[in-house]
Each structure stands twice: as C-alpha cells, then as structure tokens.
C-alpha cells in the first residue's frame, strides 16, 4: 500500500538515482525537514533545546561519523571521545585566536575565527589527527585496532589535560566558550536564543547527513564496504586499502570533530576534558550505532535519538509522574538501557534501522499478508 513504486515514473538517471526514489518516502522526508526547519524553531524553548534536541543533533553527527568508520569501513574505533575532544579544543583555540609560541616568545597570533569556521576548523584538525591514528589500521585489524584507537582516546585526553596551551593557561584547566555571533545572532554563550542554537546545529547535522549519504553510496563508500567485507578481495579487485582506510578515518574524524566542537561551543559552553570526553563517551557513541544499526545513515539518527531521549523520558516518567526517589530512577535507567542493549543484540542484531526496513516491507504489502 505504502512505499510502492507503482505510478512513480522516473524519466532521467538523476531521478532514478536520488536518495529517496519512492515518492511516498521522499515526501515523508520533506515533511520531516519542513517540521524541523520551519515549525520547531517557533515552538522551541530552552528546556527542549538543551535537554533533547541539541544533544540529539550533536550525537547524531558523532554517530554518523563513527558509523562511516565502523559500519561502512569495518574499522572498530574506541577513540570517539578523544576525537571529539580534538574538535572541541581546536574550535576553542580558533575561536579565541591561535597563539604560536617559540622559545617563550609569542611569535604571532591568528585573528579570532568566526564561530562557523571555528567549528569547521575543529573538524579539519580532527580529520588530520584521525588520519594519524588511523595509520596503524593498515597493519592491525579487529580487536587490536580497537586497542590502538583506545590508546588515542587516553593519549588525547591526557594531552589536553596536561598541556596548558590548549586551555589558554586558565587556572582550572577548563575551556569555556566566549560569546560569539553569526549574522548578529548569538550562537554561543549563555544568552543565546534556543532557536538559534537549534538551527545552527540542525544545519550541520543535515549537511553532514547528506554528505555522508552521498559518500557512502558513491565510489568512496563502495570501496569502504569492500574493505569491510573482505580486505584481501578488495585489494585484488583494485581497491587501494591505504587510501580507503585513511579516507574513512579522515571523513569519520571530520564529522566527530564537528560534533565535538558543537558539543563544547554550542551545547555545554564549558568543558573539562576528563569529564566530558572520557572513555564513556566513546562507548556511548558506539552503543548508538550498534543499537541504531551499523552501516546505516538512518540508524545513526535512530541510535542517537534512542540514547538521548530514553534517559530523559525515564526520568520524567519516574521522578515527575510517579514521584520515585531520584537515585532509584537513575539506577533504573542503567538497568533499562543495559537491558535494552542486550535485547537488541539478541533479537535484532542489525538495530533499529533493520526494524525500520522490515516495517517498510510490511507496509508495502499491507493490508495483504503476502
């Protein structure tokens, strides 16, 4: 009934190759975008923005990035938290003006970047760092690569805690985002309007998703998937593993860096590296893509939404409706989230994205059983 090609005639290659070839699906996508861009900014308030929508959008970018690396290219990474930290600290340095010292003297100082370009620079710097830490992936695979990226996680966090230059020599070692504006509207700092931060993050999320979608179904993505499925076979058919793996690391780290920069500058406003970008962050994003669905763009969004919304929803149900003690609810959250991860891994190893696919297939046949 729904999701059918019937009556949908493509007359050009471009139409045939578009992301959502089925008309129904395409309109649903436009409706989602319309609601996100046109309706939500008018009804949003601080609570919705800071508790649900900003973390969802930012984690969605991180999940997209990790999904490219793990889901599409098959390189397991536990360094997400460290790479997000690179994004955050580069963004901070660029937005406050990078100072270069040599022999105890200030050599020169870059002008302060606009917040938009600071965030892009956060992504670029993370891509470079990601490529560096991706180099071992040419020699080691699987669990061993996971351990190598784990080293990146610990090294980067240690570095940002240790070298005072990264936090501009502040007494506490925290970085805090000063007020910055884009087109005269505040984007960072305490007095930002909720709609502005939301639209700013939404812009990055949508662009990242479109880029990721088109990369993964193009030549680059096919190479990644070939490497994932069998690297020797891929090499024999002419995929250069060096380029494929390093581009996957670069693109993935770029997205993760963007999300780290947004996480620091727009969402939290002040971070401390050991607390905000610890190993738990790496696991959180990994859980997002496992629950959402490895190798799926939609899965990245579904997983991020699931792990951001679920704790808040549980808290509202437990504390605000039933009036249970806060610690019981917090423990219950751990039980429920942990239990759901186990259930998902057993019942639907391909994640929410697979559920979505199955649902679409059912809808095509509905109301008939076959």
């Amino acid at each position, binding site marked *: 009934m729904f999701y059918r090609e019937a009556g949908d005639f493509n007359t050009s290659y471009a139409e045939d190759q578009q992301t959502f070839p089925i008309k129904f699906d395409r309109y649903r996508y436009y409706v989602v975008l319309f609601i996100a861009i046109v309706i939500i900014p008018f009804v949003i*308030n*601080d*609570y*919705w923005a*800071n*508790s649900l929508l900003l*973390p969802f959008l930012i984690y969605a970018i991180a999940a997209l990035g990790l999904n490219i690396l793990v889901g599409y290219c098959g390189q397991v990474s536990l360094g997400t938290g460290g790479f997000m930290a690179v994004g955050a600290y580069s963004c901070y340095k660029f937005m406050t003006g990078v100072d270069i010292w040599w022999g105890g003297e200030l050599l020169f100082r870059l002008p302060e970047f606009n917040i938009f370009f600071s965030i892009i620079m956060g992504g670029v710097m993370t891509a470079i760092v990601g490529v560096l830490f991706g180099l071992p992936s040419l020699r080691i695979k699987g669990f061993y690569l996971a351990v190598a990226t784990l080293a990146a996680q610990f090294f980067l966090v*240690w570095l940002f*805690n240790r070298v005072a230059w990264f936090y501009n020599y*502040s*007494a*506490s*070692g*925290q970085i*805090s985002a*000063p*007020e910055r504006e884009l087109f005269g509207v505040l984007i960072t*700092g*305490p*007095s930002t309007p909720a709609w502005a931060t939301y639209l700013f993050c939404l812009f990055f999320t949508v662009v990242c998703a479109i880029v990721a979608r088109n990369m993964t179904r193009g030549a680059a993505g096919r190479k990644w998937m070939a490497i994932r499925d069998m690297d020797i076979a891929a090499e024999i058919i002419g995929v250069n593993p060096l380029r494929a793996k390093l581009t996957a690391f670069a693109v993935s780290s770029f997205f993760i860096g963007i999300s780290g920069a947004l996480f620091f500058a727009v*969402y*939290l*406003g*002040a*971070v*401390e590296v*050991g*607390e*905000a970008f*610890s190993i738990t962050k790496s696991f959180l994003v990994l859980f997002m893509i496992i629950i959402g669905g490895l190798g799926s763009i939609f899965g990245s969004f579904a997983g991020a939404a699931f792990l951001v919304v679920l704790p*808040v929803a549980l*808290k*509202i149900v437990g*504390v*605000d*409706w039933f009036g249970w*003690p*806060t*610690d019981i*609810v*917090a*423990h219950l959250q*751990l039980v429920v989230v942990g239990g759901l991860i186990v259930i998902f891994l057993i019942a639907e190893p391909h994640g929410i994205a697979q559920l979505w696919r199955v649902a679409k297939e059912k809808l095509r046949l509905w109301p008939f059983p076959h």
Partner: protein
Amino acid sequence: MKYKLGTMAVATMMAASPVMADLVFPSLSYRTGPYAAGGIPFADGYADYFTMLNARDGGIGGVMTKVLECETGYNTEKGVECYESTKGEGSLVYQPLSTGITYQLIPKTTADNIPMHTMGYGRTSAANGDVFSHTFNYPANYWNGASGAVNYLLNENGGSLEGKKIALVYHNSAYGKEPIRTLTELSKKHGFEFKEVPVDHPGQEQKSQWLQIRRDKPDYVIMYGWGVMNQVAVQEAANIRFPMENFIGIWWSGSENDVLAAGDAANGYKALTFHGVGDDFPVFDDIKKHVVDAGNAAGAGDQIGTVLYNRGLYAAMLAAEAVKTAQEIHGVADITAAQMRDGMEALSITEEKMAALGLPNFGPSFDVSCANHGGEGYVGVTQWDASAKSWSLISDFAPSDMDVIGALVAEDSAAYAAENNIESSCK
C-alpha cells in the same frame, strides 16, 4: 486517560507552569555514580533542614519550602538537563556540588537572573562579586583552603616554613588544579618547596604517585581529592607509612567515607573545614523530633551528623538565612530568584544568629557584600580519631592570607571579565 497522560507529559516536559506558592530550592544531587558516597549525605542534610523548617516553623516567613531534587550523577550533561528542567519552577538558588557543573552554570544563571551558591567549591574568583554578580562562594573557597593549610603549618612550625617541602596530591580536574596558583605564590612568600602530584579521575590507582612521594620525602602532603580518590590516598599514605598528622586534606577530603576504609592506620589524618563537626548541636534535636521521628528523613536517614551531612545542612541554613534577609529587604514573603540574590548579597552571619538557630559556633561569622561574595575566608582544621571514629575540630576558624588570595582573585576575575565583556555590577 490517554489525553490526560499526554497533557501531563506536555506540562511536565515544558516545565512552563511555575509554582510560585512555595520557596523552591532545587537540589542538583548525585546519589549514583562514582561520587555518590559524597553526594548522598550532602543531599540528605540539605533536604532535611528544609523539611525541619516546614514542620517546625511552617516554612520561612510563613511560606513553605520545597526541595526539588534532580539527579546529576556528577555529570555535566545531566547537570544542564537538571538546570533547564528546574529553572522554570521558581527556583531560588542553585547548589550543584560539582565544580564542573558550576562552570557551566555561572554564565547561565547570570543570564537567567538566578543566584548560585558554590560553598567551598566552584570557581574561586567568583568571590569577586563585581564580576560574578550571581555566583556566591561564602564562607570559604579553595584558595582560602590552601592558604588555611599553609597557615596551620606555619603555626605548627613556629612561623617559618623555610626549607620545608610540601606536596599537593590533587584530582586532575578543574577542581584539583584550583589551589596550584595559590600554593605557588605562597611557596615563594614563605620559602617552602612545592611539588604537584596529579591523580587522574577517578583515582583508584595511585601507586606511582605515592611511590613518588616516598622518594621525594615531602614534610607535608596537602590533598585536593573527591570520591574514591580520598580513601585510596589515605590507604596508600598508610602503606608507605607517611605520618598521618602531616597529611592534610581539603574539606572535600575530610569525611567519614574517606578514612573509615583505612581503619586504625588513618588515625591522626587532618582535614580543613569551614563548619562544625558532629551532632552535638541543639538543631539536631529538632531534626530528630520533626524529621527523623516523623519518618520524613531524606534518603536512608543514616547520615545524620556526618561531616558531609552537616555541610548540606549548613548550606541549607545559609540559604534559609538569605531568604529571611531577602524577605526583610523586599518586604514580601514569597520572594523571587532576583530578590534571593539581593538577600544573599546582604547576608550577615553572626554568632548570635547561629546560636539562635541551634548551631552555636557551627561556622565562622561573616558578611557578604556586593564586592565580596566570598566572605572572610576563615578556615578551621579537623582531625580524625580512628578509635572513637569521629572528627574533632583542633583549631579555631582562623583567617587565611587575603593579601595573596585577594590579588589572585582580582587577576583571575579580571581575565574572566575581559574575556566575556562583563561590566562592573557594583556601583
């Protein structure tokens, strides 16, 4: 039913209907996570004091109090969620009990015109009310603590620390790094050698740090730790036979949780404080009568009289006194957050006031003003008696070196003001 649930969901989630009939005190507590052992007694003490005020006096100035508890797990993201979900409920003052969350909330609370009280933690230079208009950290801050410890050691050594070696074992985070600058300055002033020994979160593994201490043989060790790091440090100090009376913790490293695990070996360990210890104060009789016996104790009710419970109670008492001050200034009983800020800024705690509240000599007496949000910074020292399993105050609340601290506060707050374009708020 479905409709009802839906509207309830919308109402709770939008948090758009402020309940103005109560004096609302949000408690951003952490009863779970790696720092729960410290978070639980503080939250219990904070809640119990307000429960007692409601039961005994019918609230403050005739208006009932209400504690809104929100679990942060010492996590900054959850802290932001908690802040956003409670700020619309008429919240009067925030006390996040976490330096990380404090840094998030300093600009946010200022923009939302809600005061925040970070008692003995947070950003030390917030003591400069000229720059930090909505943040208060009376009666003492980290730098008072560092200086208080050095002053205490000066006293012990007949006024001179020349040639002595002092090591700082600290939690490698915003919190632990705070005292470094002060101690560096003080080491120049008093001629002692100062060594930094960082411990990474959560601090369960400190073998190498204590090996370093054993090798360097410092005369004194000062510790800025929190959570499990404290117990481990005390145990490791005992393992290398470091003399406990030369080991001084900040007030966050000086509760029962931190020393009980090491048993008798912890005997003689010292910690700084800015409030009294034990339950030998008249107010505890009221707590027992109106809260515990009535079955309204927060949490498990087993923390009463512990160091951190007392700190929560003290925080609640200071908040309640600020409410009374605000009620006097503005002549209304049901005050707003902005009026609460004025009350905090005009707060004056005297001996008589504390005695009248059933807390004689519980803390130092101090005055808050627009320029000084940190009080006078009087710090006392407590010592652990392992056989009696109790802390006792071994020195009076003594002044700290405000010449050094004042200059550092001015420098750090000026940097913050320049970075964020803040204009002087005191006329």
